[in-house]
């Protein structure tokens, strides 16, 4: 039921969202999250996303399965890009379909928090000065956000 993809290419959010509702009359709520590359006040030329092939898909599938266990979902899509991504471009996409809005919102929010802290992706910043910059540091606030869903 879930669609999970890790890819270098961009994706079409509308096509992905409509695939969750096409031909259905039981979906009352569709939530999408699109994560985009910011230029950090003009400082960034690009983000480079490294991932662990095989584990990335497997870990996303585990997170999706946990969301499906917690909420009555009618469909889930998660797409995460890897490689070099320019400011303004899409990085990640989560869509959740449900009969009612509360589970659709909660599951999408949960999926993003868990992907941030569990899916094996790492961001490196490339500055406008042409040099490869630092690896982005993990944020305490992301860990706190993920812990909101504990017990």
């Amino acid at each position, binding site marked *: 039921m879930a669609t999970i993809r890790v890819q270098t290419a961009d994706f079409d959010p509308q096509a992905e969202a409509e695939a969750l509702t096409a031909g259905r009359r039981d979906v009352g709520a569709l939530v999408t999250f699109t*994560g985009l590359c910011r230029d950090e006040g003009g400082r960034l030329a690009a983000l480079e*996303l*490294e*991932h*662990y092939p*095989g*584990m990335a898909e*497997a*870990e996303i599938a*585990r997170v999706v399965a946990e969301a499906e266990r917690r909420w009555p979902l009618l469909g889930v899509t998660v797409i*995460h890009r890897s490689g070099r991504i320019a400011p303004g471009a899409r*990085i*990640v996409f989560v869509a959740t379909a449900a009969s009612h809005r509360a589970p659709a919102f909660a599951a999408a929010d949960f999926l*993003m928090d868990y*992907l*941030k*802290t*569990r*899916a*094996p*992706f*790492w*961001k*490196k910043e490339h500055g406008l000065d042409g040099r490869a910059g630092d*690896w*982005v*540091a*993990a944020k305490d606030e992301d860990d706190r956000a993920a812990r909101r869903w504990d017990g």
Partner: protein
Amino acid sequence: MKASYFAWVRERIGKAGEEIAPPDSVRTCAELIAWMAGRGEEYAYAFENPQIIRVALDRAHARPDAPIAGAREVAFFPPMTGG
């Protein structure tokens, strides 16, 4: 067992992965990190802050006290920053 490195762990070691053969005395992920740190200067640098290194066994997250016995693949990497 096959070892893979990601992000700055990969950059510090200078390679994406290799075959490793830890002795039988190395039983847990935490012990494996300590053993890796002793394999040379670049490894000491990559693993200088062992408590922030994450380990995956056969492509699943593993805790520091998880046993490594039977794993065919181990990966070392910093905390994730995707999404």
